[in-house]
């Protein structure tokens, strides 16, 4: 009881109370400025696009204030995307148009080609491949920044936020700041008594206020208002917090987009595992199986030599057996390599051990930093391992680096693999390239791959994976 009382009495003097008051006071003019900026810019599409960075800056300012004053930490939304624009040459323009239109793209004929706007080239290629539509040429054009900005969902949400915030903010300012000011005013009312022309104040039931003594009747009212002010201010920030979380944060993809994303990644998983199985079969067929056939041939011939002719040509038999022996050893080595490619046994002891083995086997010196207090799920460990292997192989093959760093850090919910090298940089994912394939594989478990590789280096590739697939 005394604890609660103390909390109530101390509330007006806490940092939170003052911070929230400051928030209520500062953000109203901010919302006003934002609205004044936004409304005239709603006139046409070009202005929507042109004003998008400005609107986003207002959003960023609001997030900053909410973080510092309300402790409401909302991450920034996805950056503005350019609007993809691809020219496609296909003998089957009509069915392709129908397909991409169904995905929300806009299509215009352009001479012998069709121009498809709003879908990235990779997605168009996937759609065409699914329906076996031949594509003779596909040229991504200079993408439109303005069109992307016009349609940016995060920006439209920010516009909506400021529209609502202006009303909520006006109410908050009046209620919150009014309560504080009123409380202070009444608390100190006797001091103002001379100035405040008490004869104009009429309270129902008497004229207490016209005397100095009577003016002290307002002091408790001021105290109550001041004690209530922090709670009221806090209450008026609640809808604002919800609005900021809902409208100024990262845009959650619509369910249809999520479904499309899952369809794509699932198709990739299926293709990828089929391709891996094909690869394993090829390796077996060309490698160990061929070795074993050769071995059987040599042993068959040696057996014949020993049984058919009398006396047996022992030198020749010895040579055949020697050849067979060599074939057997080669087959064993190939099987071992193949088995390791399917599942690295080092992973059984955890990712850190497996990465240590990997780093040690790498062609160039690799500094290894691991911090994996808890093991991620097996599928994630495997993807992380193969990502690291692919990235280190890329460094050795393409970067010209002399040194690389492999970092693996697991915090609850997130496993980050990062490979940094001191090579020449300029790494880009190309279709059918290793990095692109890796990005696709990582995406299948809702992970992401970031490449930071300016020309001249250094290159830093980061793979982020959820702890559990």
């Amino acid at each position: 009881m005394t604890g609660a009382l103390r909390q109530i009495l101390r509330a007006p003097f806490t940092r939170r109370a003052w911070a929230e008051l400051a928030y209520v006071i500062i953000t109203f003019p901010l919302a006003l400025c934002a609205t004044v900026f936004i409304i005239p810019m709603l006139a046409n599409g070009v202005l929507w696009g042109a004003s998008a960075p400005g609107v986003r800056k207002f959003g960023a300012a609001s997030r900053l204030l909410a973080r510092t004053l309300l402790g409401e930490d909302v991450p920034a939304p996805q950056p503005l995307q350019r609007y993809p624009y691809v020219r496609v040459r296909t003998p089957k323009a009509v069915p392709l148009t129908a397909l991409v239109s169904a995905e929300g793209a806009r299509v215009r004929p352009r001479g012998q080609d069709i121009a498809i706007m709003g879908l990235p080239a990779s997605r168009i290629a996937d759609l065409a491949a699914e329906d076996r539509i031949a594509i003779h040429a596909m040229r991504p054009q200079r993408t439109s920044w303005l069109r992307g900005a016009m349609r940016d969902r995060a920006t439209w949400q920010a516009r909506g936020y400021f529209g609502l915030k202006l009303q909520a903010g006006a109410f908050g300012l009046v209620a919150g700041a009014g309560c504080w000011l009123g409380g202070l005013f009444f608390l100190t009312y006797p001091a103002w008594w001379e100035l405040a022309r008490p004869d104009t104040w009429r309270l129902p039931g008497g004229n207490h206020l016209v005397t100095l003594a009577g003016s002290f009747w307002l002091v408790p009212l001021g105290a109550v208002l001041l004690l209530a002010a922090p709670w009221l201010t806090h209450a008026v920030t609640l809808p604002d917090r919800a609005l900021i979380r809902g409208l100024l944060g990262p845009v959650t993809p619509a369910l249809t987009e999520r479904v499309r994303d899952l369809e794509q990644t699932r198709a990739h998983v299926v293709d990828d595992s089929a391709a891996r199985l094909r690869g394993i079969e090829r390796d077996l067929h060309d490698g160990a199986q061929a070795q074993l056939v050769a071995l059987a041939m040599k042993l068959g011939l040696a057996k014949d030599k020993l049984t058919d002719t009398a006396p047996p040509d022992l030198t020749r038999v010895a040579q055949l057996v020697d050849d067979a022996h060599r074939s057997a050893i080669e087959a064993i080595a190939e099987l071992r390599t193949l088995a390791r490619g399917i599942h690295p046994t080092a992973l059984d002891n955890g990712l850190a051990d497996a990465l240590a083995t990997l780093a040690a086997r790498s062609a160039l010196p690799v500094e290894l930093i691991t911090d994996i207090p808890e093991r991620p799920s097996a599928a994630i460990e495997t993807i992380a391992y193969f990502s690291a292997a692919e990235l280190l192989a890329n460094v050795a093959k393409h970067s010209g680096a002399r040194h690389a760093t492999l970092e693996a850090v697991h915090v609850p919910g997130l496993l980050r693999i990062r490979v940094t090298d001191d090579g020449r940089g300029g790494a880009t994912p190309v279709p059918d390239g290793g990095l692109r394939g890796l990005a696709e594989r990582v995406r299948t478990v809702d992970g992401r791959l970031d490449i930071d590789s300016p020309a001249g280096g250094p290159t830093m590739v980061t793979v982020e994976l959820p702890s559990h697939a």
Partner: protein
Amino acid sequence: MRIVIAEDAAVIRAGLTEILTDRGHEVVAAVGDAEALKAAVAEHRPDVAIVDVRMPPDHTDEGLRAAIAIRREHPGTGILVFSQYVETRYAADLLSMRAGGVGYLLKDRVANVGEFIDAITRVAGGGTALDPEVVAGMLNASRHANSLSALTARERDVLALMAEGRSNTAIAEHLVVSDRAVEKHISNIFSKLGLPPSDSDHRRVLAVLAYLGS
């Protein structure tokens, strides 16, 4: 015999060459892909070509398609398709033109050098040499199962051995019966399959074709 080998795995190519040379045959060319095979056959006109099914560039059925082309263009050249897997469709494709001068063996069979050389000799001489697994696979896939269902179990055994390309004597040895008994079975097979009496070799081929469903 003069032989061309087409096989993309160098180690098997070398092994085959070694075995054939050892047995006194002449390997006139050993190549690694289908185009080189066609060129080599056109140039050397060998008695038999040993052809791997999967070869560069696509590693699917290049060898088989080359083999079919060779059968069309050079009927005198026997074809022994040599594969790590049994694909009954491939065998049916090969047999669909003529039944003779063709063979389809699993690579494993080469371990038994004597039988392998026998098979090549049969193919070079216009006979057939089908791997028992190919035969079993074709039996399962046979579209003529109805006409074959009239055969007794023993007659089916005999027919299977005929399809592998064995002579009556070899069949008799294999089944441990007399030559006379084998001849009796074969004539029963001919009549049950409705093959008119004519040149016995021709009927033999027809029976095998009925059996293989091609």
